[in-house]
Protein backbone atom coordinates (compact mmCIF):
# COMPACT_ATOMS: atom_id res chain seq x y z
CA UNK A 1 0.00 0.00 0.00
CA UNK A 2 1.28 3.48 -0.86
CA UNK A 3 1.62 5.92 2.02
CA UNK A 4 -1.28 8.32 2.54
CA UNK A 5 -2.38 10.95 4.98
CA UNK A 6 -5.40 9.95 7.03
CA UNK A 7 -8.00 12.55 7.99
CA UNK A 8 -11.07 11.92 10.10
CA UNK A 9 -13.82 14.15 8.74
CA UNK A 10 -15.29 16.62 11.21
CA UNK A 11 -17.94 18.10 8.93
CA UNK A 12 -19.41 17.72 5.46
CA UNK A 13 -18.02 20.99 4.09
CA UNK A 14 -14.45 20.42 5.25
CA UNK A 15 -14.57 16.78 4.10
CA UNK A 16 -15.66 17.86 0.62
CA UNK A 17 -12.91 20.49 0.48
CA UNK A 18 -10.27 17.96 1.52
CA UNK A 19 -11.47 15.32 -0.92
CA UNK A 20 -11.51 17.77 -3.84
CA UNK A 21 -7.71 17.51 -4.07
CA UNK A 22 -6.79 15.40 -7.12
CA UNK A 23 -4.99 12.75 -5.05
CA UNK A 24 -7.60 12.56 -2.26
CA UNK A 25 -10.42 10.10 -1.79
CA UNK A 26 -13.32 9.63 0.58
CA UNK A 27 -13.34 6.41 2.53
CA UNK A 28 -16.43 5.00 4.25
CA UNK A 29 -16.66 1.22 4.81
CA UNK A 30 -13.44 0.68 2.92
CA UNK A 31 -14.22 -2.90 1.86
CA UNK A 32 -13.49 -2.18 -1.81
CA UNK A 33 -11.08 0.75 -1.55
CA UNK A 34 -8.66 -0.87 0.92
CA UNK A 35 -8.53 -4.01 -1.19
CA UNK A 36 -7.64 -1.87 -4.23
CA UNK A 37 -5.09 0.11 -2.23
CA UNK A 38 -3.30 -3.07 -1.17
CA UNK A 39 -2.96 -3.95 -4.85
CA UNK A 40 -1.88 -0.36 -5.64
CA UNK A 41 -4.72 -0.04 -8.13
CA UNK A 42 -5.95 2.85 -6.01
CA UNK A 43 -3.14 5.04 -4.69
CA UNK A 44 -4.67 8.01 -2.87
CA UNK A 45 -2.21 10.28 -1.10
CA UNK A 46 -4.93 11.47 1.25
CA UNK A 47 -7.87 9.58 2.70
CA UNK A 48 -10.82 11.46 4.13
CA UNK A 49 -12.71 9.12 6.48
CA UNK A 50 -16.35 10.19 6.42
CA UNK A 51 -17.29 7.64 9.08
CA UNK A 52 -17.85 10.33 11.73
CA UNK A 53 -20.34 12.31 9.58
CA UNK A 54 -24.03 12.14 10.56
CA UNK A 55 -25.20 10.29 7.45
CA UNK A 56 -26.24 7.01 9.02
CA UNK A 57 -30.03 7.30 9.32
CA UNK A 58 -33.00 6.07 7.32
CA UNK A 59 -35.83 8.61 7.40
CA UNK A 60 -39.40 8.63 6.13
CA UNK A 61 -40.09 11.33 3.57
CA UNK A 62 -43.30 13.37 3.43
CA UNK A 63 -44.08 11.81 0.05
CA UNK A 64 -44.12 8.33 1.55
CA UNK A 65 -40.65 7.26 0.54
CA UNK A 66 -37.39 6.81 2.37
CA UNK A 67 -34.22 8.86 2.55
CA UNK A 68 -31.25 6.56 3.15
CA UNK A 69 -28.12 8.17 4.57
CA UNK A 70 -24.95 7.44 2.61
CA UNK A 71 -23.37 5.76 5.65
CA UNK A 72 -26.25 3.36 6.31
CA UNK A 73 -24.62 -0.05 6.08
CA UNK A 74 -25.85 -2.62 3.60
CA UNK A 75 -26.79 -4.83 6.57
CA UNK A 76 -28.80 -2.13 8.30
CA UNK A 77 -30.62 -1.23 5.09
CA UNK A 78 -31.49 -4.83 4.24
CA UNK A 79 -32.72 -5.48 7.79
CA UNK A 80 -34.82 -2.30 8.10
CA UNK A 81 -38.44 -3.41 8.44
CA UNK A 82 -39.71 -0.47 6.36
CA UNK A 83 -37.45 -1.58 3.52
CA UNK A 84 -38.38 -5.24 3.97
CA UNK A 85 -42.11 -4.48 3.83
CA UNK A 86 -42.25 -1.72 1.23
CA UNK A 87 -39.12 -2.27 -0.87
CA UNK A 88 -38.47 -6.02 -0.54
CA UNK A 89 -36.63 -5.81 -3.88
CA UNK A 90 -33.95 -3.74 -2.20
CA UNK A 91 -33.54 -6.08 0.76
CA UNK A 92 -33.39 -9.07 -1.58
CA UNK A 93 -30.77 -7.45 -3.79
CA UNK A 94 -28.54 -6.41 -0.91
CA UNK A 95 -28.78 -9.83 0.72
CA UNK A 96 -27.81 -11.44 -2.59
CA UNK A 97 -24.48 -9.62 -2.52
CA UNK A 98 -21.23 -10.24 -0.61
CA UNK A 99 -21.09 -11.79 2.87
CA UNK A 100 -22.51 -10.55 6.16
CA UNK A 101 -19.05 -9.39 7.25
CA UNK A 102 -18.76 -7.21 4.16
CA UNK A 103 -22.35 -5.95 4.33
CA UNK A 104 -21.74 -4.90 7.93
CA UNK A 105 -19.05 -2.46 6.77
CA UNK A 106 -20.18 -1.62 3.23
CA UNK A 107 -22.20 1.57 3.01
CA UNK A 108 -24.99 2.80 0.74
CA UNK A 109 -22.82 5.48 -0.88
CA UNK A 110 -19.81 3.22 -1.16
CA UNK A 111 -21.81 0.42 -2.74
CA UNK A 112 -22.91 2.81 -5.51
CA UNK A 113 -19.32 3.92 -6.13
CA UNK A 114 -17.55 0.55 -5.89
CA UNK A 115 -15.25 -0.31 -8.76
CA UNK A 116 -15.67 -3.11 -11.27
CA UNK A 117 -14.39 -6.60 -10.50
CA UNK A 118 -13.17 -7.08 -14.11
CA UNK A 119 -10.22 -9.47 -13.76
CA UNK A 120 -8.04 -7.24 -15.93
CA UNK A 121 -8.75 -4.16 -13.83
CA UNK A 122 -7.34 -6.16 -10.92
CA UNK A 123 -4.39 -7.65 -12.84
CA UNK A 124 -1.75 -4.92 -12.81
CA UNK A 125 0.38 -6.85 -15.32
CA UNK A 126 -2.26 -6.37 -18.04
CA UNK A 127 -3.50 -3.34 -19.98
CA UNK A 128 -6.65 -1.69 -18.66
CA UNK A 129 -7.99 1.67 -19.81
CA UNK A 130 -9.89 2.07 -16.56
CA UNK A 131 -6.78 1.55 -14.42
CA UNK A 132 -4.18 3.11 -16.77
CA UNK A 133 -5.94 5.34 -19.33
CA UNK A 134 -4.72 4.67 -22.85
CA UNK A 135 -3.13 1.31 -22.07
CA UNK A 136 -5.78 -0.76 -23.86
CA UNK A 137 -8.36 -3.31 -22.82
CA UNK A 138 -7.15 -6.84 -22.17
CA UNK A 139 -10.70 -8.04 -21.60
CA UNK A 140 -11.84 -7.46 -25.20
CA UNK A 141 -9.99 -10.53 -26.46
CA UNK A 142 -9.39 -12.03 -23.05
CA UNK A 143 -11.28 -14.16 -20.57
CA UNK A 144 -14.31 -11.88 -20.57
CA UNK A 145 -16.91 -14.26 -19.18
CA UNK A 146 -17.90 -11.83 -16.39
CA UNK A 147 -17.89 -8.72 -18.61
CA UNK A 148 -20.63 -6.51 -19.98
CA UNK A 149 -22.75 -6.92 -23.13
CA UNK A 150 -24.73 -3.66 -23.15
CA UNK A 151 -23.73 -0.01 -23.35
CA UNK A 152 -19.98 -0.53 -23.29
CA UNK A 153 -17.23 0.37 -25.77
CA UNK A 154 -14.07 -1.10 -27.23
CA UNK A 155 -12.19 0.88 -24.60
CA UNK A 156 -13.78 -0.98 -21.72
CA UNK A 157 -16.27 -3.80 -21.28
CA UNK A 158 -16.25 -3.83 -17.47
CA UNK A 159 -19.51 -4.58 -15.67
CA UNK A 160 -20.79 -2.75 -12.62
CA UNK A 161 -20.77 -5.23 -9.76
CA UNK A 162 -23.53 -3.92 -7.47
CA UNK A 163 -26.76 -5.74 -6.68
CA UNK A 164 -28.11 -2.96 -4.46
CA UNK A 165 -27.88 -0.41 -7.26
CA UNK A 166 -29.88 -2.64 -9.61
CA UNK A 167 -32.80 -2.66 -7.20
CA UNK A 168 -32.45 1.07 -6.63
CA UNK A 169 -32.54 1.63 -10.39
CA UNK A 170 -35.81 -0.29 -10.71
CA UNK A 171 -37.15 1.75 -7.78
CA UNK A 172 -36.27 5.11 -9.45
CA UNK A 173 -33.87 6.13 -6.69
CA UNK A 174 -32.41 9.63 -6.64
CA UNK A 175 -28.86 10.32 -5.47
CA UNK A 176 -28.54 13.41 -3.26
CA UNK A 177 -25.10 14.99 -3.24
CA UNK A 178 -23.32 18.03 -1.93
CA UNK A 179 -20.50 19.66 -3.84
CA UNK A 180 -17.34 21.29 -2.60
CA UNK A 181 -18.97 24.72 -2.73
CA UNK A 182 -21.91 23.47 -0.69
CA UNK A 183 -24.29 23.16 -3.63
CA UNK A 184 -26.76 20.32 -3.25
CA UNK A 185 -28.09 18.43 -6.25
CA UNK A 186 -30.20 15.39 -6.96
CA UNK A 187 -29.17 12.92 -9.65
CA UNK A 188 -31.42 10.13 -10.93
CA UNK A 189 -29.49 6.92 -10.28
CA UNK A 190 -29.56 6.09 -13.99
CA UNK A 191 -27.69 9.34 -14.70
CA UNK A 192 -25.05 8.80 -11.98
CA UNK A 193 -22.89 6.52 -14.10
CA UNK A 194 -21.02 7.60 -17.23
CA UNK A 195 -20.80 5.33 -20.25
CA UNK A 196 -17.19 4.19 -20.74
CA UNK A 197 -16.76 5.67 -24.25
CA UNK A 198 -13.11 6.63 -24.60
CA UNK A 199 -12.75 7.55 -20.92
CA UNK A 200 -13.65 4.48 -18.88
CA UNK A 201 -11.58 5.75 -15.94
CA UNK A 202 -14.26 8.42 -15.38
CA UNK A 203 -17.13 6.38 -13.98
CA UNK A 204 -19.66 8.84 -12.59
CA UNK A 205 -20.84 12.40 -13.08
CA UNK A 206 -19.69 13.38 -9.60
CA UNK A 207 -17.23 16.28 -9.41
CA UNK A 208 -14.05 16.11 -7.31
CA UNK A 209 -15.05 16.50 -3.68
CA UNK A 210 -18.74 15.92 -4.38
CA UNK A 211 -20.17 13.71 -1.66
CA UNK A 212 -23.17 11.41 -1.82
CA UNK A 213 -25.20 12.37 1.25
CA UNK A 214 -28.20 10.14 0.76
CA UNK A 215 -30.32 8.08 -1.57
CA UNK A 216 -33.96 9.04 -1.93
CA UNK A 217 -36.48 6.32 -2.63
CA UNK A 218 -39.83 7.53 -3.96
CA UNK A 219 -42.91 5.75 -2.63
CA UNK A 220 -42.85 2.10 -3.72
CA UNK A 221 -44.42 1.50 -7.15
CA UNK A 222 -47.48 -0.73 -7.17
CA UNK A 223 -46.88 -4.38 -7.92
CA UNK A 224 -44.83 -7.30 -6.75
CA UNK A 225 -41.09 -6.86 -6.43
CA UNK A 226 -38.67 -9.69 -7.20
CA UNK A 227 -34.87 -9.76 -7.45
CA UNK A 228 -33.24 -12.80 -9.02
CA UNK A 229 -29.49 -13.30 -9.20
CA UNK A 230 -27.76 -15.93 -11.31
CA UNK A 231 -24.19 -16.73 -10.35
CA UNK A 232 -21.57 -19.45 -10.34
CA UNK A 233 -22.26 -20.57 -6.77
CA UNK A 234 -25.19 -20.25 -4.41
CA UNK A 235 -23.75 -17.52 -2.19
CA UNK A 236 -21.06 -14.84 -1.98
CA UNK A 237 -20.38 -14.42 -5.71
CA UNK A 238 -20.91 -11.64 -8.21
CA UNK A 239 -23.77 -11.87 -10.65
CA UNK A 240 -23.45 -13.33 -14.09
CA UNK A 241 -26.86 -11.80 -14.64
CA UNK A 242 -29.43 -10.43 -12.24
CA UNK A 243 -32.90 -9.05 -12.80
CA UNK A 244 -34.94 -6.65 -10.69
CA UNK A 245 -38.62 -6.61 -11.54
CA UNK A 246 -41.65 -4.74 -10.26
CA UNK A 247 -44.82 -6.10 -11.82
CA UNK A 248 -48.34 -4.75 -11.37
CA UNK A 249 -51.06 -6.90 -12.87
CA UNK A 250 -54.77 -6.64 -13.67
CA UNK A 251 -56.84 -9.65 -14.69
CA UNK A 252 -53.99 -11.68 -16.14
CA UNK A 253 -52.49 -8.67 -17.90
CA UNK A 254 -49.54 -6.47 -17.03
CA UNK A 255 -50.63 -3.05 -15.81
CA UNK A 256 -47.10 -1.69 -15.36
CA UNK A 257 -43.63 -3.15 -15.13
CA UNK A 258 -40.18 -2.06 -14.07
CA UNK A 259 -37.17 -3.98 -15.34
CA UNK A 260 -33.49 -3.55 -14.47
CA UNK A 261 -30.55 -5.89 -14.97
CA UNK A 262 -27.24 -6.38 -13.18
CA UNK A 263 -24.07 -7.91 -14.61
CA UNK A 264 -24.77 -6.68 -18.13
CA UNK A 265 -23.39 -3.17 -18.31
CA UNK A 266 -21.21 -0.44 -16.81
CA UNK A 267 -24.26 0.52 -14.75
CA UNK A 268 -27.44 -1.15 -13.56
CA UNK A 269 -29.29 -1.52 -16.86
CA UNK A 270 -32.86 -0.24 -16.84
CA UNK A 271 -34.80 -1.45 -19.84
CA UNK A 272 -37.59 0.95 -20.68
CA UNK A 273 -38.03 -1.02 -23.92
CA UNK A 274 -38.86 -4.15 -21.97
CA UNK A 275 -41.19 -2.16 -19.73
CA UNK A 276 -43.00 -0.76 -22.76
CA UNK A 277 -43.28 -4.22 -24.29
CA UNK A 278 -44.78 -5.56 -21.09
CA UNK A 279 -47.34 -2.81 -20.53
CA UNK A 280 -50.75 -4.32 -21.28
CA UNK A 281 -49.29 -7.68 -22.26
CA UNK A 282 -50.78 -10.99 -21.21
CA UNK A 283 -49.09 -12.82 -18.35
CA UNK A 284 -47.62 -15.47 -20.59
CA UNK A 285 -44.25 -16.93 -21.35
CA UNK A 286 -44.49 -15.44 -24.85
CA UNK A 287 -44.91 -11.92 -23.44
CA UNK A 288 -42.02 -12.37 -21.04
CA UNK A 289 -39.82 -13.71 -23.83
CA UNK A 290 -40.77 -10.78 -26.05
CA UNK A 291 -39.72 -8.39 -23.28
CA UNK A 292 -36.39 -10.16 -22.97
CA UNK A 293 -35.88 -10.01 -26.71
CA UNK A 294 -36.24 -6.22 -26.84
CA UNK A 295 -34.24 -5.75 -23.62
CA UNK A 296 -31.24 -7.53 -25.13
CA UNK A 297 -31.78 -6.28 -28.67
CA UNK A 298 -28.63 -4.14 -28.69
CA UNK A 299 -26.50 -6.58 -26.73
CA UNK A 300 -23.13 -7.68 -28.06
CA UNK A 301 -21.10 -10.57 -26.71
CA UNK A 302 -17.31 -10.63 -26.68
CA UNK A 303 -16.80 -14.38 -26.85
CA UNK A 304 -16.70 -15.86 -23.40
CA UNK A 305 -19.65 -13.75 -22.27
CA UNK A 306 -21.93 -14.50 -25.26
CA UNK A 307 -23.97 -16.76 -22.98
CA UNK A 308 -25.08 -13.75 -20.94
CA UNK A 309 -27.45 -12.61 -23.68
CA UNK A 310 -29.73 -15.68 -23.69
CA UNK A 311 -29.17 -16.08 -19.95
CA UNK A 312 -30.45 -12.55 -19.34
CA UNK A 313 -33.58 -13.25 -21.40
CA UNK A 314 -34.29 -16.41 -19.48
CA UNK A 315 -33.55 -14.74 -16.16
CA UNK A 316 -36.02 -11.98 -17.00
CA UNK A 317 -38.65 -14.53 -17.98
CA UNK A 318 -38.20 -16.45 -14.71
CA UNK A 319 -38.24 -13.26 -12.64
CA UNK A 320 -41.38 -11.96 -14.34
CA UNK A 321 -43.05 -15.33 -13.89
CA UNK A 322 -42.19 -15.29 -10.19
CA UNK A 323 -43.54 -11.76 -9.83
CA UNK A 324 -46.72 -12.79 -11.66
CA UNK A 325 -47.09 -15.76 -9.33
CA UNK A 326 -47.01 -18.27 -12.15
CA UNK A 327 -43.58 -19.74 -11.48
Amino acid sequence: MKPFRYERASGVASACASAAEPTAKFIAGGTNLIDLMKLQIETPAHLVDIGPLPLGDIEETQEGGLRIGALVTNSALAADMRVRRRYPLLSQAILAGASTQLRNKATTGGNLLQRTRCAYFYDTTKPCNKRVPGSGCAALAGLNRMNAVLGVSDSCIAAHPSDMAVAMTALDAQIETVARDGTARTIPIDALYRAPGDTPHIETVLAPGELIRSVLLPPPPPGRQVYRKVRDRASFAFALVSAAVVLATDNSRVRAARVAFGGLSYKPWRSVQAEAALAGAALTRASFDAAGFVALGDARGYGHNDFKIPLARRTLRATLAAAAGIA
Partner: protein
Amino acid sequence: MAARPPSAEAAAEPAQKVALTVNGRRHALDIDPRVTLLDALRENLALTGTKKGCDQGQCGACTVIVNGQRINSCLTLAVMHAGDEITTIEGLAEDGDLHPMQAAFVRHDGLQCGYCTPGQICSAVALVAEHKAGWPSHVTADVASVPALTDTEIAERMSGNICRCAAYANIVAAIRDVAEGGRS
Protein backbone atom coordinates in the same frame (compact mmCIF):
# COMPACT_ATOMS: atom_id res chain seq x y z
CA MET B 1 -0.30 -13.06 -1.35
CA ALA B 2 -0.34 -11.49 2.06
CA ALA B 3 0.83 -7.90 2.06
CA ARG B 4 4.19 -7.18 3.58
CA PRO B 5 4.10 -5.14 6.77
CA PRO B 6 4.42 -1.58 5.50
CA SER B 7 7.09 -0.44 7.95
CA ALA B 8 9.99 -1.06 5.56
CA GLU B 9 8.58 0.97 2.67
CA ALA B 10 9.96 4.40 1.95
CA ALA B 11 8.32 7.78 2.49
CA ALA B 12 5.84 6.64 5.09
CA GLU B 13 3.52 9.23 6.54
CA PRO B 14 4.18 9.82 10.24
CA ALA B 15 2.64 7.40 12.67
CA GLN B 16 -0.82 8.27 13.86
CA LYS B 17 -2.10 7.95 17.40
CA VAL B 18 -5.13 5.77 17.92
CA ALA B 19 -6.58 4.10 21.00
CA LEU B 20 -8.10 0.69 20.32
CA THR B 21 -10.39 -1.01 22.82
CA VAL B 22 -9.90 -4.73 22.37
CA ASN B 23 -11.60 -7.31 24.58
CA GLY B 24 -12.34 -4.56 27.11
CA ARG B 25 -8.76 -3.29 27.33
CA ARG B 26 -7.68 0.05 25.94
CA HIS B 27 -4.44 0.16 23.96
CA ALA B 28 -2.81 3.44 22.90
CA LEU B 29 -0.93 2.94 19.64
CA ASP B 30 1.29 5.01 17.37
CA ILE B 31 0.59 3.39 14.06
CA ASP B 32 1.16 3.81 10.33
CA PRO B 33 -2.26 4.67 8.86
CA ARG B 34 -1.79 1.84 6.34
CA VAL B 35 -1.94 -0.84 9.04
CA THR B 36 -5.12 -2.87 8.85
CA LEU B 37 -7.03 -3.73 11.99
CA LEU B 38 -5.95 -7.34 11.39
CA ASP B 39 -2.25 -6.46 11.36
CA ALA B 40 -2.64 -4.17 14.36
CA LEU B 41 -4.23 -6.99 16.36
CA ARG B 42 -1.61 -9.52 15.38
CA GLU B 43 1.58 -7.47 15.09
CA ASN B 44 1.07 -4.57 17.50
CA LEU B 45 -1.08 -6.22 20.17
CA ALA B 46 0.18 -9.82 19.79
CA LEU B 47 -3.40 -11.08 19.60
CA THR B 48 -2.60 -13.80 17.07
CA GLY B 49 -5.86 -15.68 17.48
CA THR B 50 -7.29 -13.64 14.62
CA LYS B 51 -5.89 -15.21 11.46
CA LYS B 52 -4.72 -13.81 8.14
CA GLY B 53 -6.02 -15.97 5.31
CA CYS B 54 -6.65 -14.27 1.99
CA ASP B 55 -6.17 -10.69 3.25
CA GLN B 56 -8.83 -9.55 0.76
CA GLY B 57 -12.14 -10.15 2.47
CA GLN B 58 -13.00 -13.45 0.85
CA CYS B 59 -12.12 -16.15 3.41
CA GLY B 60 -13.34 -14.79 6.74
CA ALA B 61 -10.38 -16.07 8.80
CA CYS B 62 -9.84 -12.52 10.10
CA THR B 63 -13.43 -12.05 11.31
CA VAL B 64 -13.72 -10.03 14.53
CA ILE B 65 -16.69 -8.39 16.22
CA VAL B 66 -16.75 -4.58 16.25
CA ASN B 67 -19.52 -2.84 18.19
CA GLY B 68 -21.45 -6.11 18.11
CA GLN B 69 -21.10 -6.67 14.36
CA ARG B 70 -18.81 -9.14 12.60
CA ILE B 71 -16.43 -7.64 10.05
CA ASN B 72 -13.36 -8.66 8.07
CA SER B 73 -10.50 -7.06 10.00
CA CYS B 74 -8.27 -7.26 6.89
CA LEU B 75 -10.40 -4.72 5.00
CA THR B 76 -10.42 -1.93 7.54
CA LEU B 77 -7.70 0.35 8.85
CA ALA B 78 -6.79 0.36 12.52
CA VAL B 79 -6.93 4.17 12.61
CA MET B 80 -10.62 4.01 11.65
CA HIS B 81 -11.51 2.27 14.94
CA ALA B 82 -10.93 4.85 17.64
CA GLY B 83 -13.66 4.42 20.25
CA ASP B 84 -14.93 1.12 18.86
CA GLU B 85 -15.41 -1.98 21.03
CA ILE B 86 -13.46 -4.76 19.35
CA THR B 87 -13.88 -8.39 20.37
CA THR B 88 -11.51 -11.08 19.12
CA ILE B 89 -11.47 -14.83 19.71
CA GLU B 90 -9.29 -14.14 22.78
CA GLY B 91 -12.11 -12.09 24.32
CA LEU B 92 -14.94 -14.62 24.08
CA ALA B 93 -14.16 -16.85 27.06
CA GLU B 94 -15.17 -15.51 30.48
CA ASP B 95 -13.35 -16.35 33.71
CA GLY B 96 -11.68 -19.30 32.05
CA ASP B 97 -14.94 -20.77 30.76
CA LEU B 98 -15.23 -21.20 27.05
CA HIS B 99 -17.89 -19.18 25.30
CA PRO B 100 -20.87 -21.46 24.49
CA MET B 101 -19.96 -21.25 20.80
CA GLN B 102 -16.38 -22.31 21.49
CA ALA B 103 -17.63 -25.23 23.59
CA ALA B 104 -20.07 -26.23 20.85
CA PHE B 105 -17.32 -26.24 18.21
CA VAL B 106 -15.30 -28.57 20.46
CA ARG B 107 -18.31 -30.76 21.21
CA HIS B 108 -19.32 -31.06 17.55
CA ASP B 109 -15.77 -31.34 16.23
CA GLY B 110 -16.40 -28.24 14.09
CA LEU B 111 -12.84 -28.05 12.80
CA GLN B 112 -9.95 -30.03 11.46
CA CYS B 113 -6.78 -27.93 11.09
CA GLY B 114 -8.25 -25.07 13.10
CA TYR B 115 -6.87 -22.15 11.08
CA CYS B 116 -10.28 -20.77 10.11
CA THR B 117 -11.82 -21.55 13.49
CA PRO B 118 -11.35 -18.22 15.32
CA GLY B 119 -13.04 -16.46 12.39
CA GLN B 120 -15.75 -19.11 12.18
CA ILE B 121 -16.51 -18.77 15.89
CA CYS B 122 -16.55 -14.96 15.94
CA SER B 123 -18.77 -15.05 12.86
CA ALA B 124 -21.09 -17.62 14.44
CA VAL B 125 -21.43 -15.65 17.68
CA ALA B 126 -22.51 -12.59 15.70
CA LEU B 127 -24.77 -14.69 13.47
CA VAL B 128 -26.81 -15.84 16.46
CA ALA B 129 -27.20 -12.22 17.60
CA GLU B 130 -28.21 -11.10 14.09
CA HIS B 131 -30.83 -13.83 13.93
CA LYS B 132 -32.17 -12.85 17.34
CA ALA B 133 -32.43 -9.29 16.04
CA GLY B 134 -34.63 -10.61 13.22
CA TRP B 135 -32.30 -10.11 10.28
CA PRO B 136 -33.34 -11.88 7.06
CA SER B 137 -30.90 -13.54 4.66
CA HIS B 138 -30.66 -14.34 0.97
CA VAL B 139 -32.44 -17.68 1.52
CA THR B 140 -35.31 -16.17 3.53
CA ALA B 141 -38.34 -16.72 1.29
CA ASP B 142 -40.14 -13.59 2.52
CA VAL B 143 -37.68 -10.92 3.63
CA ALA B 144 -40.39 -9.23 5.70
CA SER B 145 -40.66 -12.36 7.86
CA VAL B 146 -38.37 -13.43 10.68
CA PRO B 147 -37.14 -16.84 9.56
CA ALA B 148 -36.32 -19.87 11.68
CA LEU B 149 -32.61 -20.59 11.84
CA THR B 150 -32.59 -23.68 9.64
CA ASP B 151 -29.41 -25.34 8.41
CA THR B 152 -29.96 -23.62 5.06
CA GLU B 153 -30.15 -20.26 6.83
CA ILE B 154 -27.00 -21.03 8.84
CA ALA B 155 -25.08 -22.08 5.73
CA GLU B 156 -26.06 -18.91 3.85
CA ARG B 157 -25.24 -16.68 6.81
CA MET B 158 -21.82 -18.34 7.19
CA SER B 159 -20.89 -18.01 3.51
CA GLY B 160 -18.27 -15.40 4.38
CA ASN B 161 -16.22 -18.02 6.23
CA ILE B 162 -14.39 -20.63 4.20
CA CYS B 163 -13.14 -23.89 5.74
CA ARG B 164 -10.73 -25.64 3.39
CA CYS B 165 -10.88 -28.77 5.56
CA ALA B 166 -14.61 -28.65 4.84
CA ALA B 167 -15.79 -29.12 8.42
CA TYR B 168 -18.97 -27.37 7.39
CA ALA B 169 -21.44 -30.03 8.53
CA ASN B 170 -20.11 -29.94 12.08
CA ILE B 171 -19.80 -26.14 12.08
CA VAL B 172 -23.48 -25.90 11.17
CA ALA B 173 -24.34 -28.43 13.89
CA ALA B 174 -22.40 -26.42 16.48
CA ILE B 175 -24.14 -23.19 15.56
CA ARG B 176 -27.58 -24.84 15.53
CA ASP B 177 -26.85 -26.29 18.96
CA VAL B 178 -26.03 -22.87 20.43
CA ALA B 179 -28.95 -21.16 18.67
CA GLU B 180 -31.32 -23.77 20.11
CA GLY B 181 -30.04 -23.20 23.63
CA GLY B 182 -27.03 -25.49 23.61
CA ARG B 183 -25.84 -27.85 26.25
CA SER B 184 -23.10 -25.74 27.77
